[in-house]
Protein backbone atom coordinates (compact mmCIF):
# COMPACT_ATOMS: atom_id res chain seq x y z
CA UNK A 1 0.00 0.00 0.00
CA UNK A 2 2.67 2.41 1.11
CA UNK A 3 4.97 1.57 -1.77
CA UNK A 4 2.31 1.99 -4.41
CA UNK A 5 0.80 5.13 -2.93
CA UNK A 6 1.83 7.33 -5.84
CA UNK A 7 0.54 4.96 -8.52
CA UNK A 8 -2.73 4.53 -6.69
CA UNK A 9 -3.29 8.22 -6.10
CA UNK A 10 -2.60 9.00 -9.75
CA UNK A 11 -4.98 6.23 -10.77
CA UNK A 12 -7.57 7.68 -8.42
CA UNK A 13 -7.13 11.14 -9.96
CA UNK A 14 -7.52 9.61 -13.40
CA UNK A 15 -10.67 7.75 -12.33
CA UNK A 16 -12.07 10.97 -10.94
CA UNK A 17 -11.36 12.82 -14.16
CA UNK A 18 -12.96 10.07 -16.23
CA UNK A 19 -15.97 10.01 -13.93
CA UNK A 20 -16.40 13.76 -14.22
CA UNK A 21 -16.27 13.43 -17.99
CA UNK A 22 -18.82 10.62 -17.87
CA UNK A 23 -21.24 12.84 -15.96
CA UNK A 24 -20.69 16.18 -17.65
CA UNK A 25 -19.50 15.23 -21.12
CA UNK A 26 -20.79 11.75 -21.88
CA UNK A 27 -19.99 12.03 -25.57
CA UNK A 28 -16.34 11.83 -24.55
CA UNK A 29 -16.95 8.11 -24.42
CA UNK A 30 -18.27 7.51 -27.91
CA UNK A 31 -16.25 4.53 -29.06
CA UNK A 32 -14.38 5.53 -32.21
CA UNK A 33 -13.02 8.90 -31.04
CA UNK A 34 -12.09 7.33 -27.74
CA UNK A 35 -10.20 4.57 -29.52
CA UNK A 36 -8.43 7.08 -31.75
CA UNK A 37 -7.40 9.21 -28.82
CA UNK A 38 -6.11 6.19 -26.99
CA UNK A 39 -4.17 4.97 -30.03
CA UNK A 40 -2.65 8.40 -30.48
CA UNK A 41 -1.05 8.04 -27.04
CA UNK A 42 0.58 4.68 -27.74
CA UNK A 43 3.82 6.05 -29.25
CA UNK A 44 4.27 8.23 -26.19
CA UNK A 45 3.62 5.19 -24.03
CA UNK A 46 6.41 3.28 -25.73
CA UNK A 47 8.78 6.23 -25.39
CA UNK A 48 7.77 6.53 -21.74
CA UNK A 49 9.06 3.02 -21.15
CA UNK A 50 12.52 4.20 -22.19
CA UNK A 51 12.25 7.43 -20.21
CA UNK A 52 11.28 5.51 -17.10
CA UNK A 53 14.48 3.47 -17.37
CA UNK A 54 16.55 6.59 -18.03
CA UNK A 55 15.18 8.35 -14.96
CA UNK A 56 15.52 5.23 -12.80
CA UNK A 57 19.21 5.19 -13.75
CA UNK A 58 19.36 8.78 -12.45
CA UNK A 59 19.68 10.46 -15.83
CA UNK A 60 17.37 12.39 -18.09
CA UNK A 61 16.93 12.60 -21.85
CA UNK A 62 15.29 15.66 -23.33
CA UNK A 63 16.34 14.89 -26.89
CA UNK A 64 13.64 12.26 -27.41
CA UNK A 65 11.31 14.65 -29.23
CA UNK A 66 13.98 15.46 -31.81
CA UNK A 67 14.96 11.81 -32.12
CA UNK A 68 11.32 10.99 -32.70
CA UNK A 69 11.02 13.51 -35.54
CA UNK A 70 14.24 12.31 -37.12
CA UNK A 71 13.19 8.66 -36.97
CA UNK A 72 9.74 9.49 -38.32
CA UNK A 73 11.22 11.25 -41.34
CA UNK A 74 13.72 8.45 -42.00
CA UNK A 75 10.94 5.89 -41.74
CA UNK A 76 8.71 8.00 -43.97
CA UNK A 77 11.35 8.41 -46.67
CA UNK A 78 12.15 4.71 -46.70
CA UNK A 79 8.48 3.77 -46.81
CA UNK A 80 7.88 6.26 -49.60
CA UNK A 81 10.79 4.66 -51.48
CA UNK A 82 8.79 1.45 -51.39
CA UNK A 83 10.77 -0.56 -48.87
CA UNK A 84 8.82 -3.17 -46.94
CA UNK A 85 7.50 -2.16 -43.55
CA UNK A 86 9.74 -4.48 -41.47
CA UNK A 87 12.83 -2.91 -43.05
CA UNK A 88 11.44 0.55 -42.40
CA UNK A 89 10.80 -0.40 -38.80
CA UNK A 90 14.30 -1.76 -38.31
CA UNK A 91 15.87 1.31 -39.91
CA UNK A 92 13.89 3.62 -37.65
CA UNK A 93 14.82 1.64 -34.55
CA UNK A 94 18.45 1.60 -35.66
CA UNK A 95 18.52 5.34 -36.27
CA UNK A 96 17.04 5.93 -32.84
CA UNK A 97 19.52 3.59 -31.20
CA UNK A 98 22.43 5.42 -32.83
CA UNK A 99 21.18 8.80 -31.63
CA UNK A 100 20.61 7.36 -28.17
CA UNK A 101 24.08 5.85 -28.21
CA UNK A 102 25.61 9.27 -28.90
CA UNK A 103 23.92 10.61 -25.77
CA UNK A 104 24.90 7.51 -23.84
CA UNK A 105 28.55 7.67 -24.82
CA UNK A 106 28.86 11.34 -23.87
CA UNK A 107 27.12 10.85 -20.54
CA UNK A 108 28.62 7.51 -19.55
CA UNK A 109 32.22 7.77 -20.61
CA UNK A 110 32.85 11.50 -20.56
CA UNK A 111 30.84 11.98 -17.39
CA UNK A 112 28.97 14.98 -18.78
CA UNK A 113 25.65 15.96 -17.20
CA UNK A 114 22.87 14.28 -19.17
CA UNK A 115 20.64 17.35 -19.11
CA UNK A 116 23.14 19.48 -20.98
CA UNK A 117 24.21 16.72 -23.37
CA UNK A 118 20.65 15.90 -24.37
CA UNK A 119 19.73 19.57 -24.56
CA UNK A 120 22.51 19.98 -27.09
CA UNK A 121 21.59 16.88 -29.10
CA UNK A 122 17.94 17.90 -28.96
CA UNK A 123 18.68 21.14 -30.77
CA UNK A 124 21.23 19.59 -33.10
CA UNK A 125 18.87 16.88 -34.40
CA UNK A 126 15.92 19.25 -34.50
CA UNK A 127 17.66 21.90 -36.54
CA UNK A 128 19.38 19.33 -38.74
CA UNK A 129 15.97 17.91 -39.55
CA UNK A 130 14.63 21.34 -40.32
CA UNK A 131 17.55 22.12 -42.57
CA UNK A 132 17.12 18.79 -44.32
CA UNK A 133 13.35 18.67 -44.73
CA UNK A 134 12.40 22.33 -44.40
CA UNK A 135 9.10 21.34 -42.88
CA UNK A 136 7.96 19.26 -45.86
CA UNK A 137 5.20 16.75 -45.23
CA UNK A 138 5.94 13.26 -46.48
CA UNK A 139 3.17 11.30 -48.13
CA UNK A 140 3.17 7.64 -47.28
CA UNK A 141 2.22 4.90 -49.74
CA UNK A 142 -1.27 3.46 -49.16
CA UNK A 143 -0.20 0.12 -47.69
CA UNK A 144 1.54 1.73 -44.76
CA UNK A 145 -1.33 3.25 -42.85
CA UNK A 146 -2.56 0.86 -40.19
CA UNK A 147 -0.15 -1.71 -41.64
CA UNK A 148 -2.63 -2.17 -44.43
CA UNK A 149 -5.27 -3.34 -41.96
CA UNK A 150 -8.62 -1.74 -41.31
CA UNK A 151 -8.48 1.27 -39.03
CA UNK A 152 -9.96 -0.39 -35.98
CA UNK A 153 -7.86 -3.51 -36.43
CA UNK A 154 -4.76 -1.34 -36.73
CA UNK A 155 -5.72 0.60 -33.65
CA UNK A 156 -6.30 -2.57 -31.70
CA UNK A 157 -2.97 -3.93 -32.90
CA UNK A 158 -1.10 -0.82 -31.80
CA UNK A 159 -2.76 -0.67 -28.41
CA UNK A 160 -2.22 -4.38 -27.87
CA UNK A 161 1.42 -4.13 -28.91
CA UNK A 162 2.18 -1.12 -26.72
CA UNK A 163 0.52 -2.64 -23.68
CA UNK A 164 2.36 -5.90 -24.28
CA UNK A 165 5.64 -3.98 -24.50
CA UNK A 166 5.00 -2.28 -21.18
CA UNK A 167 4.18 -5.64 -19.66
CA UNK A 168 7.33 -7.16 -21.12
CA UNK A 169 9.41 -4.21 -19.91
CA UNK A 170 7.96 -4.45 -16.42
CA UNK A 171 8.66 -8.18 -16.39
CA UNK A 172 12.25 -7.71 -17.52
CA UNK A 173 12.87 -4.95 -15.00
CA UNK A 174 11.78 -7.27 -12.25
CA UNK A 175 12.98 -10.63 -13.47
CA UNK A 176 16.18 -10.13 -15.40
CA UNK A 177 19.42 -9.08 -13.75
CA UNK A 178 19.95 -6.26 -16.25
CA UNK A 179 16.77 -4.59 -15.01
CA UNK A 180 17.94 -4.80 -11.45
CA UNK A 181 21.30 -3.33 -12.49
CA UNK A 182 19.50 -0.22 -13.74
CA UNK A 183 17.88 0.19 -10.34
CA UNK A 184 21.21 -0.49 -8.64
CA UNK A 185 23.11 2.11 -10.68
CA UNK A 186 20.40 4.72 -10.13
CA UNK A 187 20.28 3.89 -6.45
CA UNK A 188 24.01 4.15 -5.78
CA UNK A 189 26.47 4.04 -8.67
CA UNK A 190 29.46 3.61 -6.37
CA UNK A 191 27.96 0.66 -4.54
CA UNK A 192 27.06 -0.81 -7.93
CA UNK A 193 30.67 -0.54 -9.03
CA UNK A 194 31.77 -2.31 -5.86
CA UNK A 195 29.26 -5.08 -6.60
CA UNK A 196 31.00 -5.62 -9.94
CA UNK A 197 28.46 -3.83 -12.12
CA UNK A 198 29.89 -1.45 -14.73
CA UNK A 199 27.78 1.69 -14.27
CA UNK A 200 29.07 3.24 -17.50
CA UNK A 201 27.90 0.31 -19.55
CA UNK A 202 24.48 0.35 -17.89
CA UNK A 203 24.07 4.08 -18.51
CA UNK A 204 25.13 3.73 -22.13
CA UNK A 205 22.78 0.82 -22.66
CA UNK A 206 19.84 2.67 -21.16
CA UNK A 207 20.33 5.67 -23.45
CA UNK A 208 20.73 3.44 -26.53
CA UNK A 209 17.58 1.55 -25.60
CA UNK A 210 15.76 4.83 -25.08
CA UNK A 211 16.69 5.78 -28.65
CA UNK A 212 15.62 2.42 -30.05
CA UNK A 213 12.24 2.68 -28.34
CA UNK A 214 11.81 6.17 -29.75
CA UNK A 215 12.52 4.75 -33.22
CA UNK A 216 9.84 2.15 -32.66
CA UNK A 217 7.42 4.76 -31.36
CA UNK A 218 8.03 6.94 -34.41
CA UNK A 219 6.84 4.16 -36.72
CA UNK A 220 3.86 3.47 -34.48
CA UNK A 221 2.98 7.12 -34.90
CA UNK A 222 3.62 7.23 -38.63
CA UNK A 223 1.22 4.40 -39.43
CA UNK A 224 -1.65 6.31 -37.85
CA UNK A 225 -1.92 8.87 -40.63
CA UNK A 226 -1.29 9.09 -44.35
CA UNK A 227 1.50 11.62 -43.87
CA UNK A 228 4.61 12.15 -41.77
CA UNK A 229 5.14 15.55 -40.21
CA UNK A 230 8.74 16.43 -39.37
CA UNK A 231 7.48 18.32 -36.32
CA UNK A 232 5.61 15.31 -34.93
CA UNK A 233 8.05 14.93 -32.03
CA UNK A 234 7.87 18.49 -30.73
CA UNK A 235 7.20 18.53 -27.03
CA UNK A 236 7.27 14.74 -26.73
CA UNK A 237 10.13 14.86 -24.22
CA UNK A 238 8.12 16.83 -21.68
CA UNK A 239 5.04 14.70 -22.07
CA UNK A 240 7.07 11.55 -21.56
CA UNK A 241 9.08 12.90 -18.64
CA UNK A 242 5.90 14.13 -17.03
CA UNK A 243 4.24 10.74 -17.54
CA UNK A 244 7.16 8.95 -15.91
CA UNK A 245 7.50 11.38 -13.02
CA UNK A 246 3.78 11.53 -12.38
CA UNK A 247 3.70 7.75 -12.58
CA UNK A 248 5.91 7.58 -9.53
CA UNK A 249 9.47 7.43 -10.89
CA UNK A 250 11.66 9.37 -8.46
CA UNK A 251 13.85 11.97 -10.15
CA UNK A 252 16.54 11.14 -7.60
CA UNK A 253 16.90 7.76 -9.30
CA UNK A 254 16.64 4.15 -8.26
CA UNK A 255 12.92 4.01 -7.72
CA UNK A 256 10.02 3.58 -10.08
CA UNK A 257 7.89 1.12 -11.83
CA UNK A 258 6.85 0.78 -15.42
CA UNK A 259 3.18 0.22 -14.66
CA UNK A 260 2.99 3.76 -13.32
CA UNK A 261 3.37 5.18 -16.84
CA UNK A 262 -0.17 4.03 -17.68
CA UNK A 263 -2.08 6.19 -15.24
CA UNK A 264 0.59 8.88 -15.58
CA UNK A 265 0.30 9.18 -19.33
CA UNK A 266 -3.46 8.71 -19.47
CA UNK A 267 -3.98 11.39 -16.86
CA UNK A 268 -1.84 13.84 -18.82
CA UNK A 269 -3.35 12.81 -22.13
CA UNK A 270 -6.88 13.32 -20.91
CA UNK A 271 -6.31 16.76 -19.51
CA UNK A 272 -6.56 18.34 -22.92
CA UNK A 273 -9.68 16.55 -24.20
CA UNK A 274 -11.23 17.17 -20.82
CA UNK A 275 -10.49 20.87 -21.09
CA UNK A 276 -12.13 20.95 -24.50
CA UNK A 277 -15.12 19.07 -23.22
CA UNK A 278 -15.47 21.51 -20.37
CA UNK A 279 -15.12 24.33 -22.88
CA UNK A 280 -11.81 25.56 -21.56
CA UNK A 281 -9.24 26.58 -24.11
CA UNK A 282 -6.95 23.76 -25.16
CA UNK A 283 -3.83 25.90 -25.10
CA UNK A 284 -3.19 25.17 -21.46
CA UNK A 285 -1.72 21.73 -22.16
CA UNK A 286 1.95 22.69 -21.90
CA UNK A 287 1.40 24.84 -18.83
CA UNK A 288 -0.44 22.01 -17.13
CA UNK A 289 2.34 19.58 -18.03
CA UNK A 290 4.89 21.88 -16.47
CA UNK A 291 2.75 22.33 -13.39
CA UNK A 292 2.29 18.58 -13.09
CA UNK A 293 6.07 17.97 -13.29
CA UNK A 294 6.63 20.60 -10.60
CA UNK A 295 3.92 19.15 -8.38
CA UNK A 296 5.38 15.68 -8.72
CA UNK A 297 8.91 16.78 -7.79
CA UNK A 298 7.64 18.94 -4.95
CA UNK A 299 5.72 15.95 -3.60
CA UNK A 300 8.83 13.79 -3.92
CA UNK A 301 10.95 16.47 -2.27
CA UNK A 302 8.62 16.82 0.68
CA UNK A 303 8.33 13.06 1.04
CA UNK A 304 12.07 12.44 0.97
CA UNK A 305 12.70 15.29 3.41
CA UNK A 306 10.25 13.70 5.78
CA UNK A 307 11.89 10.32 5.30
CA UNK A 308 15.35 11.73 6.09
CA UNK A 309 14.18 13.69 9.15
Amino acid at each position, binding site marked *: MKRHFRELSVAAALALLLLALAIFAPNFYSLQPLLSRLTAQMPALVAAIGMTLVIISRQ*IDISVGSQFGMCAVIAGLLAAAGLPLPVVLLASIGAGAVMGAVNGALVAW*LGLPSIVVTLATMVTWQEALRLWQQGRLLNLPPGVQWFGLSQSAGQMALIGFAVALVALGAWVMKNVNAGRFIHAVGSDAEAARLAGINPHRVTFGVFALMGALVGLAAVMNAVQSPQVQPTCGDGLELKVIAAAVVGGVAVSGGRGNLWGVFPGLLLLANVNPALTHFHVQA*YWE*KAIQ*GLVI*LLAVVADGIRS*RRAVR
Partner: protein
Amino acid sequence: MKKLWLRHEMILLVVLVLEILLFNAIGRRFLTADNVANIVRQSVEIGLLALVMTPVILTGGIDLSVGSLLGLCAVTFGMLWGELHWPPWVAATGAVGVGAMGGCVNAALITRLRLPPLIVTLGTFSLFRGLAEALTSGTKAYTNFPASFLALGNSFFLGVPVQAWVFVVVAVAVWLLVHRTTAGRAFRAIGFAPEGARFAGLPVERRIAQAYVLAGAVAGLAAVIFVSRVTEARANAGIGYELAAITAVVLGGTSIFGGVGSVHGTLLGVAAVAVLGNGLSRILSITAFSRELSGILTGALLIVALAAGTLLRRAPGAKGRGRSG
Protein backbone atom coordinates in the same frame (compact mmCIF):
# COMPACT_ATOMS: atom_id res chain seq x y z
CA MET B 1 43.62 27.83 -11.43
CA LYS B 2 43.40 31.45 -12.31
CA LYS B 3 46.02 31.02 -14.99
CA LEU B 4 44.11 28.10 -16.48
CA TRP B 5 40.95 30.02 -17.14
CA LEU B 6 42.80 33.10 -18.18
CA ARG B 7 44.42 30.95 -20.78
CA HIS B 8 41.05 29.62 -21.85
CA GLU B 9 39.85 33.12 -22.52
CA MET B 10 42.99 34.00 -24.44
CA ILE B 11 42.48 30.97 -26.67
CA LEU B 12 38.88 31.96 -27.22
CA LEU B 13 39.92 35.49 -28.10
CA VAL B 14 42.42 34.22 -30.65
CA VAL B 15 39.79 31.91 -32.13
CA LEU B 16 37.37 34.81 -32.38
CA VAL B 17 39.88 37.04 -34.15
CA LEU B 18 40.80 34.23 -36.54
CA GLU B 19 37.12 33.61 -37.24
CA ILE B 20 36.60 37.26 -38.10
CA LEU B 21 39.69 37.42 -40.32
CA LEU B 22 38.71 34.21 -42.10
CA PHE B 23 35.15 35.26 -42.78
CA ASN B 24 36.29 38.67 -43.86
CA ALA B 25 38.73 37.10 -46.30
CA ILE B 26 36.35 34.66 -47.96
CA GLY B 27 32.92 36.03 -47.22
CA ARG B 28 31.37 38.92 -48.99
CA ARG B 29 30.90 42.13 -47.09
CA PHE B 30 31.45 40.54 -43.68
CA LEU B 31 33.07 43.41 -41.81
CA THR B 32 30.67 46.05 -43.01
CA ALA B 33 28.85 48.34 -40.61
CA ASP B 34 25.58 46.81 -41.73
CA ASN B 35 26.59 43.26 -41.06
CA VAL B 36 28.25 44.03 -37.75
CA ALA B 37 25.11 45.81 -36.58
CA ASN B 38 23.18 42.79 -37.79
CA ILE B 39 25.30 40.40 -35.74
CA VAL B 40 24.98 42.62 -32.68
CA ARG B 41 21.20 42.91 -33.00
CA GLN B 42 20.78 39.18 -33.40
CA SER B 43 22.87 38.31 -30.40
CA VAL B 44 21.82 40.88 -27.81
CA GLU B 45 18.93 38.86 -26.35
CA ILE B 46 20.90 35.62 -26.15
CA GLY B 47 23.84 37.61 -24.84
CA LEU B 48 21.72 39.04 -22.03
CA LEU B 49 20.54 35.57 -21.06
CA ALA B 50 24.12 34.26 -21.19
CA LEU B 51 25.31 37.08 -18.92
CA VAL B 52 22.86 36.20 -16.17
CA MET B 53 23.23 32.47 -16.76
CA THR B 54 26.88 32.89 -15.72
CA PRO B 55 26.22 33.46 -12.00
CA VAL B 56 23.64 30.66 -12.01
CA ILE B 57 26.13 28.17 -13.45
CA LEU B 58 28.89 29.51 -11.18
CA THR B 59 26.80 28.41 -8.18
CA GLY B 60 26.68 24.94 -9.69
CA GLY B 61 23.08 25.34 -10.87
CA ILE B 62 21.39 25.72 -14.21
CA ASP B 63 18.36 27.58 -15.51
CA LEU B 64 16.58 25.95 -18.43
CA SER B 65 13.56 28.19 -18.12
CA VAL B 66 14.99 31.52 -19.32
CA GLY B 67 13.97 31.03 -22.96
CA SER B 68 10.40 30.18 -21.97
CA LEU B 69 10.34 33.01 -19.50
CA LEU B 70 11.40 35.34 -22.30
CA GLY B 71 8.36 34.13 -24.23
CA LEU B 72 6.05 34.65 -21.28
CA CYS B 73 7.43 38.15 -20.65
CA ALA B 74 7.08 39.03 -24.33
CA VAL B 75 3.43 38.01 -24.23
CA THR B 76 2.89 39.87 -20.97
CA PHE B 77 4.43 42.95 -22.46
CA GLY B 78 2.19 42.66 -25.51
CA MET B 79 -0.90 42.25 -23.36
CA LEU B 80 -0.07 45.12 -21.01
CA TRP B 81 0.41 47.38 -23.99
CA GLY B 82 -2.25 45.98 -26.31
CA GLU B 83 -5.08 45.15 -23.92
CA LEU B 84 -4.50 47.32 -20.88
CA HIS B 85 -3.12 50.18 -23.00
CA TRP B 86 -0.17 50.81 -20.75
CA PRO B 87 2.51 53.01 -22.31
CA PRO B 88 5.31 50.79 -23.75
CA TRP B 89 7.89 51.83 -21.16
CA VAL B 90 5.57 51.08 -18.26
CA ALA B 91 4.63 47.78 -19.86
CA ALA B 92 8.34 47.03 -20.18
CA THR B 93 8.71 47.48 -16.44
CA GLY B 94 5.81 45.08 -16.01
CA ALA B 95 7.54 42.51 -18.23
CA VAL B 96 10.73 42.77 -16.18
CA GLY B 97 8.62 42.36 -13.04
CA VAL B 98 6.99 39.21 -14.42
CA GLY B 99 10.46 37.91 -15.28
CA ALA B 100 11.65 38.54 -11.73
CA MET B 101 8.57 36.74 -10.41
CA GLY B 102 9.32 33.77 -12.64
CA GLY B 103 12.85 33.76 -11.25
CA CYS B 104 11.37 33.83 -7.73
CA VAL B 105 9.38 30.67 -8.50
CA ASN B 106 12.59 28.89 -9.51
CA ALA B 107 14.49 30.28 -6.54
CA ALA B 108 11.83 29.30 -4.03
CA LEU B 109 11.58 25.73 -5.27
CA ILE B 110 15.37 25.33 -5.40
CA THR B 111 16.34 26.94 -2.10
CA ARG B 112 13.28 26.35 0.08
CA LEU B 113 12.45 22.81 -0.96
CA ARG B 114 16.03 21.92 -1.91
CA LEU B 115 14.98 20.47 -5.25
CA PRO B 116 17.52 19.98 -8.05
CA PRO B 117 17.68 23.13 -10.28
CA LEU B 118 17.69 20.94 -13.34
CA ILE B 119 14.29 19.37 -12.85
CA VAL B 120 12.75 22.51 -11.33
CA THR B 121 13.69 24.66 -14.30
CA LEU B 122 12.69 21.89 -16.69
CA GLY B 123 9.24 22.10 -15.13
CA THR B 124 9.11 25.89 -15.32
CA PHE B 125 10.52 25.66 -18.87
CA SER B 126 7.27 23.97 -19.77
CA LEU B 127 5.11 26.00 -17.41
CA PHE B 128 6.23 29.44 -18.60
CA ARG B 129 5.98 28.57 -22.28
CA GLY B 130 2.61 26.97 -21.65
CA LEU B 131 1.34 30.09 -19.88
CA ALA B 132 2.52 32.21 -22.78
CA GLU B 133 0.62 29.98 -25.20
CA ALA B 134 -2.45 29.86 -23.02
CA LEU B 135 -2.55 33.64 -22.63
CA THR B 136 -2.41 34.17 -26.38
CA SER B 137 -4.52 31.15 -27.30
CA GLY B 138 -1.45 29.77 -28.99
CA THR B 139 -1.31 32.04 -31.98
CA LYS B 140 -2.33 35.56 -31.12
CA ALA B 141 0.37 38.15 -31.79
CA TYR B 142 0.54 41.77 -30.64
CA THR B 143 1.80 44.10 -33.33
CA ASN B 144 1.69 47.75 -34.42
CA PHE B 145 3.88 49.02 -31.62
CA PRO B 146 4.69 52.73 -31.80
CA ALA B 147 7.81 53.67 -33.73
CA SER B 148 9.37 55.21 -30.63
CA PHE B 149 9.35 51.77 -29.03
CA LEU B 150 10.51 49.91 -32.14
CA ALA B 151 13.52 52.19 -32.22
CA LEU B 152 14.93 50.20 -29.30
CA GLY B 153 15.38 47.19 -31.50
CA ASN B 154 15.97 48.74 -34.89
CA SER B 155 17.67 52.13 -34.64
CA PHE B 156 21.10 53.47 -33.92
CA PHE B 157 22.31 55.69 -31.15
CA LEU B 158 25.73 57.28 -31.71
CA GLY B 159 26.26 54.90 -34.60
CA VAL B 160 25.59 51.78 -32.53
CA PRO B 161 22.36 49.77 -32.37
CA VAL B 162 20.28 51.06 -29.48
CA GLN B 163 19.95 47.70 -27.74
CA ALA B 164 23.73 47.35 -27.70
CA TRP B 165 23.82 50.20 -25.19
CA VAL B 166 21.43 48.33 -22.94
CA PHE B 167 23.58 45.25 -23.32
CA VAL B 168 26.73 47.13 -22.40
CA VAL B 169 25.10 48.49 -19.26
CA VAL B 170 23.91 45.03 -18.18
CA ALA B 171 27.26 43.47 -19.08
CA VAL B 172 29.17 45.97 -16.97
CA ALA B 173 26.75 45.49 -14.10
CA VAL B 174 26.97 41.69 -14.20
CA TRP B 175 30.74 41.84 -14.58
CA LEU B 176 30.98 44.03 -11.50
CA LEU B 177 28.60 41.75 -9.63
CA VAL B 178 30.54 38.60 -10.41
CA HIS B 179 34.08 39.95 -10.24
CA ARG B 180 33.95 42.86 -7.85
CA THR B 181 31.40 42.12 -5.15
CA THR B 182 31.04 39.74 -2.25
CA ALA B 183 28.01 38.23 -3.98
CA GLY B 184 30.20 37.12 -6.87
CA ARG B 185 32.70 35.69 -4.43
CA ALA B 186 29.89 33.78 -2.76
CA PHE B 187 28.63 32.39 -6.10
CA ARG B 188 32.02 30.82 -6.70
CA ALA B 189 32.41 29.51 -3.17
CA ILE B 190 28.97 27.89 -3.39
CA GLY B 191 29.83 26.37 -6.75
CA PHE B 192 33.05 24.88 -5.43
CA ALA B 193 31.74 23.67 -2.09
CA PRO B 194 28.21 24.49 -0.93
CA GLU B 195 28.83 22.97 2.50
CA GLY B 196 32.13 24.77 2.84
CA ALA B 197 30.40 28.05 2.01
CA ARG B 198 27.79 27.39 4.68
CA PHE B 199 30.49 26.65 7.25
CA ALA B 200 32.11 29.98 6.38
CA GLY B 201 28.87 31.74 7.28
CA LEU B 202 28.00 32.79 3.73
CA PRO B 203 24.28 33.30 3.06
CA VAL B 204 24.11 30.33 0.68
CA GLU B 205 20.36 30.17 0.11
CA ARG B 206 20.02 33.91 -0.36
CA ARG B 207 22.81 34.09 -2.94
CA ILE B 208 21.43 31.19 -4.95
CA ALA B 209 17.99 32.79 -4.91
CA GLN B 210 19.45 36.10 -6.08
CA ALA B 211 21.11 34.44 -9.06
CA TYR B 212 17.82 32.94 -10.26
CA VAL B 213 15.80 36.10 -9.65
CA LEU B 214 18.35 38.14 -11.57
CA ALA B 215 18.19 35.64 -14.42
CA GLY B 216 14.41 36.00 -14.49
CA ALA B 217 14.42 39.80 -14.43
CA VAL B 218 16.95 40.04 -17.24
CA ALA B 219 14.94 37.50 -19.25
CA GLY B 220 12.11 40.05 -18.98
CA LEU B 221 14.39 42.80 -20.26
CA ALA B 222 15.54 40.58 -23.12
CA ALA B 223 11.89 39.94 -23.96
CA VAL B 224 11.21 43.67 -24.37
CA ILE B 225 14.21 44.05 -26.68
CA PHE B 226 13.17 40.96 -28.61
CA VAL B 227 9.66 42.31 -29.15
CA SER B 228 11.02 45.64 -30.29
CA ARG B 229 13.43 43.99 -32.75
CA VAL B 230 10.95 41.60 -34.38
CA THR B 231 8.09 44.13 -33.98
CA GLU B 232 5.65 41.62 -32.58
CA ALA B 233 4.95 39.86 -29.28
CA ARG B 234 4.15 36.20 -29.69
CA ALA B 235 4.24 33.12 -27.47
CA ASN B 236 7.04 31.48 -29.43
CA ALA B 237 9.57 34.21 -28.62
CA GLY B 238 12.92 32.89 -27.47
CA ILE B 239 12.49 29.19 -28.19
CA GLY B 240 15.85 27.48 -27.78
CA TYR B 241 17.50 30.57 -26.31
CA GLU B 242 18.31 28.78 -23.05
CA LEU B 243 20.53 26.40 -24.98
CA ALA B 244 22.29 29.19 -26.86
CA ALA B 245 22.90 30.99 -23.58
CA ILE B 246 24.26 27.90 -21.85
CA THR B 247 26.48 27.21 -24.85
CA ALA B 248 27.96 30.69 -24.77
CA VAL B 249 28.62 30.40 -21.04
CA VAL B 250 30.27 26.97 -21.27
CA LEU B 251 32.20 27.95 -24.37
CA GLY B 252 33.39 30.98 -22.44
CA GLY B 253 35.15 28.74 -19.96
CA THR B 254 32.63 28.51 -17.15
CA SER B 255 32.58 25.03 -15.68
CA ILE B 256 29.19 23.35 -15.83
CA PHE B 257 30.01 21.94 -12.37
CA GLY B 258 30.31 25.41 -10.84
CA GLY B 259 32.97 27.61 -9.27
CA VAL B 260 35.21 28.36 -12.25
CA GLY B 261 34.31 30.96 -14.86
CA SER B 262 34.11 34.61 -15.83
CA VAL B 263 31.76 37.11 -17.36
CA HIS B 264 34.30 38.27 -19.96
CA GLY B 265 34.66 34.63 -20.99
CA THR B 266 30.90 34.51 -21.49
CA LEU B 267 31.03 37.66 -23.61
CA LEU B 268 33.69 36.07 -25.80
CA GLY B 269 31.56 32.93 -25.99
CA VAL B 270 28.55 34.94 -27.14
CA ALA B 271 30.63 36.72 -29.76
CA ALA B 272 32.24 33.52 -31.02
CA VAL B 273 28.88 31.81 -31.53
CA ALA B 274 27.32 34.86 -33.17
CA VAL B 275 30.21 35.45 -35.57
CA LEU B 276 30.45 31.81 -36.49
CA GLY B 277 26.73 31.54 -37.24
CA ASN B 278 26.61 34.71 -39.27
CA GLY B 279 29.86 34.06 -41.11
CA LEU B 280 28.96 30.53 -42.13
CA SER B 281 25.54 31.47 -43.38
CA ARG B 282 27.16 34.17 -45.51
CA ILE B 283 29.81 31.90 -46.95
CA LEU B 284 27.31 29.20 -47.79
CA SER B 285 24.89 31.93 -48.96
CA ILE B 286 22.03 30.10 -47.32
CA THR B 287 20.82 33.02 -45.28
CA ALA B 288 17.36 31.51 -45.32
CA PHE B 289 18.49 28.71 -43.05
CA SER B 290 20.84 30.62 -40.79
CA ARG B 291 18.64 29.84 -37.80
CA GLU B 292 18.82 26.10 -38.35
CA LEU B 293 22.53 26.25 -39.04
CA SER B 294 23.30 28.22 -35.94
CA GLY B 295 21.16 25.81 -33.95
CA ILE B 296 23.17 22.84 -35.15
CA LEU B 297 26.41 24.71 -34.52
CA THR B 298 25.32 25.73 -31.05
CA GLY B 299 24.49 22.17 -30.09
CA ALA B 300 27.67 20.74 -31.54
CA LEU B 301 29.84 23.49 -30.04
CA LEU B 302 28.31 22.96 -26.61
CA ILE B 303 29.17 19.27 -26.68
CA VAL B 304 32.68 19.92 -27.93
CA ALA B 305 33.28 22.59 -25.29
CA LEU B 306 31.95 20.36 -22.51
CA ALA B 307 33.94 17.36 -23.66
CA ALA B 308 37.12 19.41 -24.00
CA GLY B 309 36.59 20.91 -20.55
CA THR B 310 36.12 17.49 -18.98
CA LEU B 311 39.07 15.91 -20.77
CA LEU B 312 41.35 18.81 -19.85
CA ARG B 313 40.30 18.62 -16.23
CA ARG B 314 40.93 14.91 -16.17
CA ALA B 315 44.42 15.23 -17.60
CA PRO B 316 46.28 16.66 -14.56
CA GLY B 317 45.12 13.68 -12.51
CA ALA B 318 42.14 13.12 -10.30
CA LYS B 319 41.69 15.06 -7.12
CA GLY B 320 43.43 13.58 -4.11
CA ARG B 321 41.28 11.35 -2.00
CA GLY B 322 40.46 12.32 1.52
CA ARG B 323 42.70 10.65 4.01
CA SER B 324 41.95 9.08 7.32
CA GLY B 325 43.88 7.46 10.09
